[in-house]
């Protein structure tokens, strides 16, 4: 008996391991045929064809702004004559591990492209990009921040990535006089702290929210919108801005809350399907938005689906499939130009995600500063303060508080 028991359980364990490992090898050979031959779903277009396509640029009133006629974006490579001290470095801080790692990595990869291009062109100035992982956790960030500050080689910081950790560590960088150039922290309050070192490389939620809200009511003509918010800092903040921007068009009876990490949205779908709304705005991230929009469509709700930068990620389309078709996604981030996207994909094995272009642009700004002869922290802050130039995503120029002077929002559509 004893021996059979052992054999049985040993066998079971083996089976477990075998199934899991085999499964990983299986689809590479079979998956291809399968999707082409057999996966015809609902007679709609296949998800493989769907893409997030930039459509228009809007201002704070929701009005369309003609595409920027501005010239060439600044090239991080410069003229190849930059000289700087050996060991000059810029830091990038954000979540590179943990559940929020995707956003941090997008920024890091974007910035790395700029740094690589710079280093390749400028033999006399090799800049290192030093990543500091905060896991997106404010307490962790308070331990990492002193580390960044005390690293004398670091003359500028790209980050922190999230609003929470930025709030927790802002004082550290401000007192150290270290440039803090964020590519993704969009909480409007951050620039109200009187920090002189903090600049935001994109529109904050106070711009995105009203812009998109006005775009929905004025341009798209919705009269009753269900605003669905997740419980993240970003989701709540944006939902507040959207709701107040929508005014009467925000459907007060239809504002279900969901949680990051939720997988099942039947209750929210039920609330929406029972309402008289004519559109749904989702304030949160793609990980929840994809199953959410799927749940909507499965539940027979065909209302237009609008969301913002947290959802504006290729993953959203690939996970939601045909349910994502027609979704309208805003983003303070600009579209990645095709050649940038190609280089990025070559280097990182994945398409640029949200904030990749910001990471690239902001790193480029710091690199041009270094190329122009800036060699210390104070100098870089001054350089950024007075900077004005074109990036991949937009025109960069900051006001006294550290916000962009002209912050426009891009509208994308899944088609």
């Amino acid at each position, binding site marked *: 008996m004893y021996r059979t028991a052992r054999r049985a359980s040993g066998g079971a364990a083996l089976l477990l391991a075998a199934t899991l490992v085999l499964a990983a090898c299986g689809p590479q050979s079979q998956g291809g045929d399968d999707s082409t031959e057999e996966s015809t779903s609902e007679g709609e277009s296949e998800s493989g064809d769907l893409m997030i396509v930039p459509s228009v640029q809007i201002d704070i009133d929701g009005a369309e702004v003609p595409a920027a006629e501005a010239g060439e974006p600044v090239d991080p490579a410069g003229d190849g004559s930059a000289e700087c001290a050996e060991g000059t470095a810029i830091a990038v801080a954000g979540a590179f591990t943990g559940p929020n790692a995707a956003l941090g990595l997008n920024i890091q990869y974007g910035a790395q492209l700029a740094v690589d291009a710079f280093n390749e062109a400028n033999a006399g100035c090799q800049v290192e990009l030093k990543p500091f992982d905060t896991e997106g956790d404010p307490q962790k960030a308070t331990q990492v921040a002193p580390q960044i500050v005390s690293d004398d080689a670091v003359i500028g910081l790209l980050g922190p990535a999230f609003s929470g950790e930025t709030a927790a560590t802002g*004082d550290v960088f401000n*007192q150290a006089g270290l440039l803090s150039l964020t590519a993704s922290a969009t909480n409007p309050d951050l620039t109200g702290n009187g920090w002189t070192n903090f600049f935001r490389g994109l529109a904050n939620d106070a711009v995105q929210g009203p812009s998109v809200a006005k775009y929905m009511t004025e341009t798209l003509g919705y009269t009753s919108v269900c605003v669905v918010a997740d419980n993240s800092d970003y989701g*709540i903040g944006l939902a507040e801005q959207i709701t107040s921007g929508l005014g009467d068009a925000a459907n007060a009876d239809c504002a279900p809350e969901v949680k990051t990490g939720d997988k099942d949205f039947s209750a929210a779908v039920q609330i929406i399907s029972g309402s008289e709304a004519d559109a749904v705005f989702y304030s949160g991230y793609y990980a929840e938005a994809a199953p959410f929009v799927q749940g909507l469509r499965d539940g027979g709700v065909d209302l237009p689906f609008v969301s913002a930068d947290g959802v504006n990620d290729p993953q959203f389309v690939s996970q939601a499939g045909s349910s994502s078709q027609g979704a309208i996604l805003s983003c303070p981030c600009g579209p990645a130009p095709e050649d940038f996207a190609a280089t990025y994909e070559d280097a990182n094995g994945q398409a640029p995600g949200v904030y990749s272009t910001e990471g690239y642009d902001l790193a480029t700004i710091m690199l041009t500063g270094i190329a122009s002869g800036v060699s210390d922290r104070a100098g870089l802050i001054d350089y950024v303060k007075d900077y004005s130039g074109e990036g991949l995503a937009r025109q960069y120029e900051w006001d006294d508080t550290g916000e962009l002077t002209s912050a426009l929002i891009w509208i994308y559509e899944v088609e």
Partner: protein
Amino acid sequence: MSTTTPATPPSLPPAGRTATKDRPHGGVGDRFRLWWDALARPTQWLVGVPFLLFMAAVPLLNIPVLTTQGTDFGGVMAQFGMIALIAIGLNVVVGQAGLLDLGYVGFYAIGAYTVAILTSPDSPWNQTGDGMWLSREWAWLAALPVAVAITAISGLILGSPTLRLRGDYLAIVTLGFGEIVRLLADNLDELTGGGQGLRGVAYPRAGVTEDLPSGVFSAGNASGAVNSGVWWYWVSLVFIVVTLLFVGNLERSRVGRAWVAIREDEDAAEIMGVPTFRFKLWAFIIGASIGGAAGALYAGQVQFVIPTNFNIINSVLFLCAVVLGGQGNKLGVILGAFIVVYVPNFFLGRQTLFGIPIDGDEIASYKYLFFGIALVVLMIFRPQGIIPARQKLLTYGRELYVAARRSAARAAGRAPGRTEAAATTSGKESS
């Protein structure tokens, strides 16, 4: 001859229950304990105080391998201080009274949120600022006792219905409680800021200079050897010492004996006149208030609270510190807390270890896997932890222990013949 002698002929039954194999094995901890116990009180102070000073100086000494690379060492030590405090509190509940509390993070959260709700400008009940009751300078210190009191009350509220449950049920119910606290923090967004958290929590304004306009405890005090992390570490050291004194007083009293009796055999304890429910409740309340104090420290240091920091995974991490170090042993659980906090940070950002190239970040990210394995392996092979508990449960009577030690030493001197005697007893050993 005493008159008691006839009643008590000292006949030992042959079955000597020495039970060597299931007795907690000694090792370094025991040796240290023997040495320590033998010292006189003043000598203990003479040894203890410099050791404490050394511990306080650790973040300043910049010890080569010890100092972390990827994160600020002062910050790591500050976190260690808080987790150590938590471990001491959880140890009262788990180690001493034997109540498995998987929702301990809930008390930590309540402590942190109490301070934040009272002092954060984002909170509707903010008591700081113009025309309010608390000045920014003293707000943290004033909120601290409130936090401790409120967590103590919440321990009472949670404990009074649930402590009548059996041990394993209690574990699950407390787990549920921990989750409920986090979900409340998440859902009551009018009060707690929900997922946005509460910013700008007050901290002690001390050591304000021109360079440091917001004092040494501010997160802004980041450069130099004595940064805010070090200051918070020192504050937690003070908390730890005070807590250890109080918990030690309790341990060497009726209360500590009641706890251990409950842990050993609850029914027997009750029949021996121990009001078990009352003392379990006390254990819960005391554990909770220590957790609350740690939460208040956290809120002050990070100056920002958000529900995700109070995940259930932290409860298990705390438990890991207690189990790893040695349930019931106060110094052991502090060591456990150090391991739990320090080891992942040690690897973070480290590319080489003793010349061998390693991917420290990768290793650090496996921490929960390693801690999980450590829990399982410890439970199977060494359930008593690294430093097993030998609690002293009596306020007086040290002379008895010293006498026993002396006579043991005398007996050890009689080396010849003892093996023979041992053989005869061990041969008759009962199971």
